C-alpha cells in the first residue's frame, strides 16, 4: 500500500508545476500576437505604395495556388488618422483579418468575412443580382479602412460609390435626368426596400457659393448654445419644427447678416437595403416617388449643426411639405380633371427642347408655354393682360395642374386662395368697399376683377349638422337620405323633365329630404347654400381697370349673374350637373330655408319685368278670376253677417231696455 501512494505523488506535482509555469504563457500570449502597430509600421505609411512588387514579395510569405482577392477600393496604404476616425476605428486589424496570426503574413490574405458583423447586409447582398452578376465583394464599393458612417455622407459622396463602376448612367427615359441626379442618390430609386427620408439643411451664400450654415453662425444668430439652441428653435415646444418656426430661424439668420438664407432639401437613404435590383422593374414608375405617399416623406428631418461638426436631426412637421410644389398623389391625379381627359405625365412634361432621343422615349425640356397647347384661348387672353405683362406669372404659378378638382368645383374661398398666394394684402387694399369683410367672405376675386367673365348664382345642397356647421352634400349623401341608392337626382327633382327646375320643385325636394334627414346621425336639416361664382373665367383681370369700382355692376337687377341662376345636382358618377333654376327662388316666398341668407342690396326692388310677368299671370288666369272675386264677395257678405251678429249679441241689453218701455 505504501509504495503505490509514493508513485502517484511526484506525477501530480510535475503536472501542477508545468501548469503553473505555463500560466505566464497564456497571459503573455498576446505578446506574440500581431498588433496594430505591427501592421501600421508598414501599411501605415504611404511609402508602401512606392515599394516595387518584387520587393514587397520579400516582405511576405509567398503562397501558391491561392487566388488573389481583388482589393476593390482598398489600398495597401492605410491612413492611420482616417482609420482612427472611420467607423471601424475601434477595431484592431486582426479583428477582421483573422487569418493573420504571425508576421510576416501570407502574400495573399483570405477575403475578410464581413458577415461576421454585418450578417444581415451580407444576406441581402448575396441574394441580389448585383452580387450574382458582378461578384463584387463588399470592399469593391466600400473602403473599410476609411469608411465614415453613411449618415455623414452627402448625396454627392454617396453617388460616387456607385459611379466608381457605373460610369455610364443612361437615364434618358427620365424627364429631366439632370435634376434627378442633382438631388438624388442612386439607391433612392435602386433600393426600393431601403428606408428613405427628407433632410433639410440650413444654407447661406458665402463668397458667391451656397454653403451650410455652421454651428457658430447658428449660435451667434440665435444667441444660444448646445441644448438651448434647440430650445430656441422649437418655439412651441412640441418636439418638432413647424413652418413658422423654420421661418423664424431664417429671419434671425438673415438678421445676423447671413445672405440668402434658405433650406436645402436632400432626399437620402437612411437604412439601406443591399439589394439594388429587387423590384427594379417598378423603378421606372414615376409614381413610386411622385406621390404624397412616397417613402421619403415618412421621415422629414432638419439637420441642425452641432458643436463637433456633426448634425443633430430634428423632426419637421408634415405641414412643411405643403409649401413645396404639390407632387401629385398617383391616385389623386387619376381623379383630376387632366387625367380624366386622358392627359398623362409625359403629355405635359415633354416639350420642345429635345435633350436626348433614346428609342421610344424622347426627353425634352419643358418650355414655358406648354399649357397653351390645349388652353390656347386662355393663353391668348392672358398674354394680353396686364397681369402677365407686369408679373410674368405663368399658368402654374397660380394653378395646380395636378389638382384633383376642376376649377368649376372650387368654392369661392378656394378660388380666392389662388390669388391670395401673391396678393396677400388684398383685404387692406379693399378698404374703399362698404363692408369689405362681407365681400371677401362670399366672393372670389374674379367676380369683380374679371368683368368679362360670365357669372352666375349657383345653388347647392348642404346639410346643417347639430353643431351648426354647413356640410356640402354629395351624391352618396342625397341618395342615402332619399333611400334610393341609384336615383337620378335631376330626374327626381325635375319630374316634368322640362330642363329647368322651378322653385316649387326645389321646395318639394327639400321637403322630401328633410322628411328623412332624421335617419342620418349628424345632420339636423337640409337646405341650399348659395354661391355667387364665376362660371367661365376670362383671364384678363384688369380689363376695364378702375371701372371695376362701380357698385352698380353687381348691385342692380340687371347684374349679369342674375341671368344665370343654377342648381348644382351631384351625379352618380361623381360629376356635377347644373340645371337652370327659376329666378323666383331668390326673392319669392317659397319657404326654402337657406335662401334667406342670400341678399344683394337692390334685389328686393320691383322691376318692370315683374309687373309684366304679373300682368301676364293675371291675364292667364282670365275668367277664373270670377271664382276668386266671387268667393271674396260671398266672404264679404258672410263677414258682415258674422260681425253684425256678434255686436248684436253683445248689445242685447240695449234693446231689452228700450223694449221694457213698450210693455
Amino acid at each position: 500500500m505504501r509504495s503505490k501512494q509514493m508513485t502517484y505523488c511526484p506525477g501530480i506535482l510535475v503536472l501542477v508545476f508545468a501548469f503553473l509555469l505555463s500560466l505566464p504563457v497564456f497571459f503573455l500570449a498576446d505578446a506574440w500576437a500581431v498588433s496594430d502597430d505591427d501592421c501600421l509600421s508598414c501599411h501605415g505609411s504611404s511609402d508602401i505604395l512606392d515599394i516595387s512588387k518584387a520587393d514587397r514579395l520579400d516582405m511576405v510569405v509567398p503562397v501558391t495556388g491561392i487566388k488573389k482577392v481583388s482589393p476593390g477600393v482598398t489600398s495597401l496604404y492605410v491612413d492611420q488618422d482616417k482609420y482612427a476616425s472611420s467607423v471601424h476605428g475601434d477595431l484592431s486589424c486582426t479583428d477582421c483579418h483573422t487569418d493573420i496570426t504571425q508576421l510576416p503574413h501570407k502574400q495573399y490574405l483570405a477575403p475578410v468575412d464581413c458577415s461576421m458583423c454585418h450578417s444581415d447586409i451580407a444576406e441581402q447582398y448575396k441574394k441580389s443580382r448585383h452580387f450574382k452578376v458582378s461578384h463584387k465583394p463588399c470592399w469593391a464599393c466600400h473602403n473599410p479602412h476609411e469608411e465614415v458612417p453613411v449618415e455623414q455622407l452627402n448625396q454627392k459622396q454617396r453617388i460616387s460609390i456607385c459611379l466608381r463602376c457605373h460610369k455610364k448612367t443612361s437615364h434618358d427615359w427620365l424627364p429631366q435626368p439632370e435634376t434627378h441626379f442633382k438631388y438624388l442618390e442612386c439607391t433612392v430609386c435602386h433600393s426600393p426596400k431601403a428606408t428613405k427620408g427628407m433632410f433639410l439643411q440650413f444654407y447661406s451664400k458665402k463668397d458667391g457659393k451656397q454653403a451650410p450654415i455652421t454651428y457658430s453662425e447658428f449660435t451667434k444668430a440665435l444667441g444660444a448654445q448646445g441644448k438651448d439652441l434647440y430650445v430656441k428653435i422649437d418655439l412651441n415646444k412640441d418636439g418638432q419644427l413647424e413652418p413658422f418656426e423654420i421661418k423664424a430661424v431664417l429671419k434671425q439668420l438673415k438678421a445676423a447678416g447671413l445672405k440668402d438664407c434658405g433650406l436645402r432639401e436632400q432626399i437620402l437613404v437612411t437604412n439601406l437595403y443591399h439589394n439594388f435590383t429587387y423590384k427594379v422593374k417598378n423603378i421606372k414608375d414615376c409614381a413610386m416617388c411622385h406621390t404624397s405617399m412616397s417613402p421619403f416623406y415618412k421621415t422629414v428631418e432638419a439637420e441642425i449643426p452641432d458643436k463637433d461638426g456633426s448634425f443633430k436631426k430634428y423632426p419637421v412637421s408634415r405641414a412643411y411639405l405643403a409649401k413645396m410644389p404639390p407632387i401629385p398623389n398617383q391616385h389623386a391625379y387619376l381623379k383630376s380633371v387632366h387625367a380624366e381627359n386622358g392627359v398623362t405625365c409625359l403629355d405635359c412634361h415633354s416639350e420642345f427642347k429635345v435633350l436626348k432621343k433614346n428609342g421610344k422615349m424622347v426627353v425634352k425640356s419643358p418650355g414655358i408655354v406648354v399649357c397653351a397647347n390645349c388652353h390656347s384661348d386662355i393663353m391668348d387672353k392672358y398674354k394680353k393682360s396686364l397681369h402677365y405683362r407686369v408679373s410674368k406669372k405663368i399658368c402654374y404659378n397660380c394653378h395646380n395642374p395636378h389638382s384633383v378638382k376642376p376649377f368649376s368645383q372650387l368654392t369661392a374661398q378656394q378660388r380666392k386662395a389662388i390669388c391670395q398666394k401673391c396678393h396677400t394684402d388684398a383685404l387692406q387694399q379693399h378698404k374703399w368697399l362698404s363692408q369689405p369683410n362681407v365681400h371677401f367672405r362670399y366672393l372670389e376675386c374674379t367676380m369683380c376683377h374679371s368683368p368679362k367673365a360670365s357669372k352666375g348664382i349657383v345653388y347647392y345642397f348642404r346639410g346643417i349638422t347639430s353643431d351648426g356647421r354647413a356640410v356640402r352634400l354629395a351624391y352618396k349623401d342625397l341618395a342615402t337620405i332619399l333611400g334610393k341608392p341609384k336615383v337620378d337626382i335631376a330626374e327626381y327633382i325635375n319630374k316634368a323633365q322640362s330642363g329647368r327646375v322651378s322653385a316649387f320643385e326645389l321646395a318639394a325636394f327639400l321637403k322630401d329630404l328633410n322628411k328623412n334627414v332624421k335617419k342620418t346621425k349628424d345632420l339636423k336639416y337640409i337646405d341650399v347654400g348659395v354661391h355667387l361664382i364665376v362660371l367661365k373665367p376670362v383671364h384678363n383681370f384688369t380689363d376695364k381697370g378702375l371701372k371695376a369700382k362701380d357698385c352698380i355692376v353687381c348691385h342692380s337687377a340687371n347684374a349679369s349673374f342674375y341671368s344665370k341662376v343654377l342648381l348644382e345636382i351631384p351625379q352618380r358618377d361623381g360629376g356635377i350637373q347644373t340645371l337652370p333654376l327659376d329666378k323666383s327662388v331668390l326673392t319669392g316666398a317659397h319657404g326654402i330655408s337657406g335662401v334667406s341668407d342670400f341678399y344683394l342690396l337692390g334685389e328686393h326692388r320691383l322691376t318692370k319685368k315683374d309687373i309684366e310677368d304679373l300682368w301676364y299671370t293675371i291675364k292667364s288666369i282670365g275668367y277664373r278670376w270670377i271664382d276668386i272675386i266671387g268667393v271674396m264677395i260671398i266672404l264679404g257678405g258672410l263677414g258682415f253677417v258674422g260681425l253684425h251678429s256678434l255686436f248684436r249679441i253683445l248689445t242685447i241689453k240695449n234693446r231689452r231696455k228700450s223694449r221694457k218701455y213698450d210693455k
Partner: protein
Amino acid sequence: MTKERIFLHPLPVRIWHWIHAIGIVLLVLTGIQLHVPGVISVFGSFKTAVAIHNFCGFLVLGDYCLWLGYYVITGKLIKLYVPPKTDITKGLPQQAAFYLYKYFKGEEPPFQPCADEKFNSLQKCAYCFIMFVLVPLQIATGVMLYNIRFFKPVMDVFGGVQVVDAVHLITSYCFVSFLFVHLYLCTLGHTFWAHFKAMIFGYEEVHTPG
C-alpha cells in the same frame, strides 16, 4: 207705444217670394255642381243637376213674370221699388247708420213700413238693383246658355259664350252673397222671426212710438 198689425205682403207677393226663394236656392246648389263638376255631386249625376237647374231656371223666369205682372197691374212697381233721390241721398245713409251703429245702441229704426211704403231706403236700392238688373241679367244669360247654338248670334254680340258665362257666374256669386245678407237682415225685425212671419202670413207687427 201702440202695437199695430199692418198688412204688408199680399198673397201673390208672398207666393212669388217663396217660389223665387226656393228656386234661387236650388239654382245656386245645382249651379255649384255645374261649376265644379266631379268634386261636388249633391244632385247625383251631372245630367240630373243640369235638368234641375234648367227647370228651376224657367220656374224663376215664370215667377219673375208673375212678380212683374202683378206690380205693373197694381201700379205699385215704381213706388215700391224705384228709390227717389232723397232715398239715395238721405235715406240710405240714415238706414246704414242704423244698421251699423244705432241698432246696437237699442235705438228705434228710422223707417217704419206701411202697405204703400214697405221698403226702407236700403231695401229699395238693393231690391231695385236685384230685380231690375241682376235677376233679368241672370235669366237672360241663363236662357242663352240653355241653348247655345240657338242663341249664338246674340251671344256673339256680347263677346261670345265665355263672356255670357262669365256674367252668369259673377251674378250668381252676387246672389249667394245677397242671400246670406238678406236672411240675416230679415232677423233684424222687432223680434227675430217677425219679418219671416210677415212674409208667410202677410201681417207685420209694428210698434209706433207714442
